[in-house]
Each structure stands twice: as C-alpha cells, then as structure tokens.
C-alpha cells in the first residue's frame, strides 16, 4: 500500500472517530506564544527554590528585582531606576521607580524591598542562594522611594547579584502564596498552571515600563526530546529557548519554517573529580585523565557537536576567559605514561555517578569508554538529582561525576575547600580573597586569568565543554534571547513578525 493511501485511510479512521485534525498553531494568532520548556518548575517562587525552571518561567516576566540582567549579561536598572554607591563601596542607595503596582493591585514601595531582602537573609530563610545576601549588613527605607543597603564588605558583584531571580522583590501580603500563585511587578501576570502540562501568563496591562507585545504566553512542559521534535514540527510549540534534543537540530536547520540559534550559556560541563579520594588524590592521575579526554568526541557524541570545549572552569564568551585547552591535549600515550608514573601502570577501577541530564548520561558513557583506553575502568552509576545531591554533593561519596555548573561567574567555588571537589588550595583561596578586594576591571580579569590557569594546572576537574543553548523557534518569532547569561526566558520584547 502506498504511503499516500495509507495516510488517507488512517485519516478517514481518525475522522470517523470524531477527532478533528488541525494544527492548533494556525489558530494561535499573532499575539500569543507557545514556548516549550523541558523541565517543569516545582513551584513558581524564585526566592524559595534552586530549580532553574522557576527562573525560566517567572524571571523578568512575572517577577523583577532591583536590577536585572539583560540578554548580554549586563546589569540594567529594573525596579530601581538608579542607584549611587558610596566611596567605600559599602553603601548602595537605590532610587525606586514610582507608580509600580504588583499584579494584585498593591503598590510597590521601599518597604517591599526591605521585606524581600530581609526575608531572603533571615535565619529561617529558604532562599536557595542565601550566599548572595551574605554581604548585606542592613536594609533600610529612607522614604517610600529610596532604599539604602549597607554591606559588611565591598562586593564587586553586588549589583549583578541583585539581578538574580532569587533576589526579586515580592509583596509581604502575597509572598506566602507565590509558589502556586506568583504575584510580582513584571510585564506578565500569572493566569494558570495546569500541573505537568503548561503555565499560562497574560499581559500585565498596568505595567510600569514598555508593555509586553504578546497578549498571552503559554509555557508548555515537554520533557521528552522526541515529543519536543514532534510538537515543534506540528506547530504546537512556537519556540524552544533551549531545545532538549541537539541530535535533531540539523533537521530544523534544513526546514525553512524554523530558525536555529546556537547561543552560549553559563554552563561549564565538567568531569567533577573527588580530589581527596584514592588515586584521584594524585595530580598525575588527574593529569592523565585530562589527557585522555577527547573533548571533540564528547561534544560530538553527547551534544551532537554543539558546545565549546573548555580548558578551565570559565565561560568562553566572557572577556576574562583564558583559552587553556592546549595545556592538556588529547594524548593517550602521555596519559598512560602519567598513570604509570602515578603508580597505576595497569590502571584502576573507579565509579562515575551520573545525574539525569543527557549531557551527563551520554557524556558519562563516552568518558567511561575513553578512560577505559588508559586502563581506568569506571562503573557507571546513574543517580537521580536527589541522590546526586545527597551522595555526591553532600557526602562526597563519589570518584567522578559529570555536571554542568550553570551559575554565572562561579569560579569562586574552587575556593571552598569543603565543596564537593574537595579541592583545598591556599593559593587559589588567596587569589579569590584578592579578587574580592579588587575593583578595577583589568586587575580583576588578571586575577581571574590566574585563577583559571591554576585550576587548569592542578587538573582539579576534567574540563570538558561549555553547554550551548540550542534555540529553535518559528522564523516569525522575534525578540527571544539567543544566549542565556542568566536562566531566563525574557518574553517582554517577543513579538510575531508578519
């Protein structure tokens, strides 16, 4: 039977069953957008959870902070229209925007800022990024439109930090219900959430700034790569800011309806190594691993070629980035030699624990196969995030793992000796202290470069690649972010071109 006829028959069957076949996107019109997302946020309160999916829904759309990060990663004014910084870099005076209202009609005032920041740093705070608020000594409102924040020590990144999703301003009245019914000041109002399926937002007509162009925005949760492909193809989804299946991007590239945008993220994907355990204590072993990793094969195999190799823990698109890939080139002979010198001429056995994302599971399989070539036999243990956090992150019960560190500018974690890498280097810690006290950009970049070189030289972890952002969207959709300096899907400026 020809495919044509088969199709007719099947269509007939489906029609007789009373099921109408239409692409719902045709009806979608020009003022609404269906945005696909892989992970469903557990809840919608960015101040009470670490899940990136929360920010991906609400950041800049529903909630706003004093400052915001724009698509280039630069700090821009948001609820604070301007600010001044004192000489000693310890006092920030924010001038707040006037006439801003929360979605429930409550007006935004200095008291809300004080409440939000105090709540985040309180003892019983459940803020996942409490460290952001550590430097704050006090928050006071001078008048309804002015807030003064005093820091205990100068913090170079303070304004950037205030742009994080975890630092958004909430209203005391509605804060308790933000998890299920978020109320913010942003250009979109939350309208409904069909758990496990979609979250709908509607334009906030009383927005203080430039109103959003879309009337409604629907975020559809599609966790399965294959389903994502079909949904995109069928037009059920207009855009995927981060498409879950890099393997199918070529298909979309060749389809004139779609635009494929490969952008950058802040996700350094690394082979995290337990520096205090067994053979991995030895620098030579870690060096051998560094030489045994074929980054190109890993990027090709796990991410279908999308991703930028890195030689250290730093985003390649950042001006302070130092290219250190060539310090440990792929060289099996050298790796074997190093391993022998370390006392393991026949290799050894180890364990690699892999969290759920495909970059980790697929990448882990490839890494295991690559390390097998120099005699390191890895047992692959897949773990859920819960187990990963418990066993790997908290109890450090692991040899190797693969994870993407998606927080921006997070090289500072190497200074935490109790961090799960168990990397204790006074030299590095010194660099970070110096960095904190340095304000000048050039000097900061130099210190950051030294820091990158140091962890690369020490082979703290296997540095693999920078996660790419694979955007796929309908050609007519304009204004989506191409890169993700922070985890967000800022829909403020999105519109349909004719």
């Amino acid at each position, binding site marked *: 039977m020809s*495919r044509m006829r*088969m*199709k007719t028959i*099947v*269509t007939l069957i*489906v029609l007789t*069953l*009373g*099921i*109408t*076949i239409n692409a*719902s996107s045709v009806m979608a019109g020009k003022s609404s957008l269906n945005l696909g997302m892989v992970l469903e946020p*557990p*809840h919608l*309160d960015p101040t*009470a*959870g*670490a*899940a990136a999916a929360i920010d991906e829904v609400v950041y800049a759309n529903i909630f706003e902070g004093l400052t915001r990060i724009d698509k280039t990663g630069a700090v821009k004014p948001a609820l604070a229209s301007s600010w001044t910084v004192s000489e000693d870099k310890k006092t920030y005076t924010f001038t707040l925007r006037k006439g801003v209202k929360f979605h429930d009609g409550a007006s935004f005032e200095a008291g809300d800022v004080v409440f939000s920041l105090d709540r985040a740093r309180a*003892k*019983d*705070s*459940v*803020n*996942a*990024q*409490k*460290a952001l608020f550590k430097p704050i000594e006090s928050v006071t409102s001078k008048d309804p439109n002015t807030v003064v924040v005093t820091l205990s020590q100068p913090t170079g990144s303070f304004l950037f930090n205030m742009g994080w999703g975890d630092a958004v301003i909430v209203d005391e009245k509605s804060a308790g219900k933000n*998890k*299920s019914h978020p109320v913010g000041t942003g250009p979109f109002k939350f309208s409904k959430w*069909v*758990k*496990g*399926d*979609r979250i709908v937002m509607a334009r906030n007509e009383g927005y203080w700034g430039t109103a959003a162009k879309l009337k409604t925005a629907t975020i*559809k*949760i*599609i*966790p*399965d790569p*294959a*389903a994502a*492909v*079909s*949904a995109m*193809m*069928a037009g*059920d989804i207009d855009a995927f800011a981060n498409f879950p299946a890099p393997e199918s991007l070529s298909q979309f590239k060749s389809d004139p309806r779609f635009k494929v945008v490969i952008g950058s993220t802040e996700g350094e994907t690394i082979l995290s190594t337990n520096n205090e355990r067994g053979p991995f204590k030895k620098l030579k072993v870690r060096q051998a691993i560094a030489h045994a990793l074929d980054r190109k094969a890993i990027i090709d195999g796990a991410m279908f070629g999308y991703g930028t190799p890195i030689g250290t823990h730093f985003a390649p698109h950042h001006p302070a980035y130092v290219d250190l890939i060539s310090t440990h080139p792929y060289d099996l002979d050298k790796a074997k030699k190093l391993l022998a010198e370390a006392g393991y001429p026949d290799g050894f056995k180890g364990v690699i624990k892999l969290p*759920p994302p495909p970059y980790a599971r697929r990448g882990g399989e490839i890494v295991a196969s690559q390390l097998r070539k120099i005699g390191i036999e890895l047992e692959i243990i897949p773990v*859920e*995030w*819960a*187990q990963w*956090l*418990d*066993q790997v*992150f*908290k109890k450090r019960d692991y040899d190797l793992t693969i994870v993407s560190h998606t*927080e921006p500018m997070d090289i500072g974690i190497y200074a935490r000796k109790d961090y799960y890498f168990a990397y204790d280097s006074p030299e590095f810690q010194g660099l970070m202290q110096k960095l904190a006290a340095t304000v000048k950009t050039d000097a900061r970049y130099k210190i950051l470069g030294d820091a990158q070189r140091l962890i690369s030289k020490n082979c703290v972890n296997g540095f693999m690649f920078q996660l790419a952002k694979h955007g796929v969207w309908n050609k007519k959709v304009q204004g989506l972010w191409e890169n993700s300096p922070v985890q967000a899907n800022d829909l403020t400026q999105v519109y349909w071109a004719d």
Partner: protein
Amino acid sequence: MRIFLAKRVFTLVLTLLVATLVVFVVLEILPGDPAAVMLGINAEADTLNALREELGLNRPVLIRYIDWVSDLFTGDLGISYTYDVPVSELILSRITVSFPLALLAITLSTLIAIPLGIIAASNHNKPMDFLVMSFSQIGIAIPNFWFAMLLTILFSVTLRILPAGGFAGWDAGIGPVLKSLLLPTIALALPQSAILARVTRSALLEVLKEDFIRTARAKGVNNQGTLWKHALRNALIPVVTIMGLQFSFLLAGTIIIENVFYLPGIGRLIFQAISQRDLIVVKNLVILLAGAVIMINFVVDVLYAVIDPRLRGDKDV
C-alpha cells in the same frame, strides 16, 4: 452475603494499614533529602534546616507516621513539598488524565478481546481461530512501550496526524483530549486485549464442553444461542478475574505509557515525585494505588457473585 462483605472489608482495611506501614518505612529508608532537592547545590545548612522544619521533616518518625495515617482517615493528604499545593488537588488533577486513559484502555481492550475470543472459540481449530491466537501470541509478547513507539513512528513521525505526546487539557474540549489519548489508549489496550482474548477463548472452550451446553442444544437452541445465552455468562468468571488482575498491570502500564507519551497523569506524577523526593506525594499515591487495586479485587469478588449465583451463598430451599 453480609458476613462475606464484612470479612472482605476487614481484610481490606487491614491490608491498607499494613500498606501504610510498609510505604512509610520504605520512604524513610529512601536516600535523599527533599529539602536538598528543592534548594539545590548552593543552599546553606541553616536554610536546609529551616525548610525541613517548615516541611515538618524534623519531627520524630513515630509522630509523623501517626499523623499521616490519621490524616489519611480524615482525607487530608497534606501539601506537596515541591508543588506547594494540596496533594489531593494534585492527585485529582492527574486523575483526570489517568482515569480516562485507563477507562478507555480497558474498554477498548474488552471491546476487542471479547469478540475476538468468541470468534476464536466458535471457530475452534479453524483458520480464524489460528489467526486470533496468532494475534494473541504476538500481542502478549510485544512490550507496550515498544508498541507505543511503533505507533508514534507511524502516526506522528511518518504520517504526522496525531501528536507524539502531551495532553491537550480538558478545557481544550473532548476532541483534542481524545486525540491526545488515542495512541496511548491503543498502546495500552492492544497487548491487554491479546491476553484477554486468549482467556475468553479458552474459558469459552472450557464452558462449551460442559454438560449444560449439550442440554441447551438438546432443547433446540442453535449454536449462536448456546454461545450467547448459555456459554458466555459462564465463561465470564475467568474473564473477570483476568480483568481484575489486569487492572494492576494497567496501572503499571500507565506509568510507562504516560512516560512514553508525556501525559501528565498519575504514572508520571509518581515517577517524578520519587525522583524529586516529594515523599508526601509518593506515599499518598502509593497508598491510593494499592487501595485501588484492593478495591478492584473487591469489586471483582462482588462481580463473581453477580455472575454466578452459586457464589452468593444463598441457602438451599
């Protein structure tokens, strides 16, 4: 009948109680801290502790168990750790997907299986019988998730007439809902119907050998009449037994199928809740499902009595 019912209800409650204990203990052993999952890698110790306090995870084990069980009786299932909505609401919203799916699947499989079983039995040892039995053998052997994939490849990838996954939502209307449930239903129903057809056939063949069938024919009832009026109802007992057992398989099936088609149903919820350590959802769901299975077994027992008057326990004249 009343004693029978009372005894059944007693064992039902007892089984459920033991089930709560088992589930609770299992979840206590389950490694992973719900608070840690929610707060991620940058969370600080006192933040975690604050959240655990808020979730009530810091109270003694025994208190938590007793609280939970007594809450179960009052129907208050608590608040989901991750979603922060009442668990009952969450489960209810998922049931609107899973229940129609299960119902459609069991209806479809029955609609396919019983006629096939009858056709096979009434054409015993003829080509039609062989055909039905071959279908059955293949249907039993095919894993439903693979079948689901094949359906997707055919209808979604090649023909592109049905969605590969996702649920349209009830507010989209009955049409889109049926459209999104069509492939999952078929994927669930066909393998089930293979088993059911086989059972129907052999039950019918068994019954057709009985003396009372000969009696009926001796009365002048024709073949069709004997089959429909005399054999079928007697053959229903094993069929209903298998349907009852299949309910449990169906629940398992929906977990996999909902994962294949990305349907926001009970199956996905439990899978997701376990991985996110939303333990309060997990324990209530597991109890709910176990309760459903036990209830179904109960219904099957009652159905037996409806079908077969001998089991009603009425006294002789």
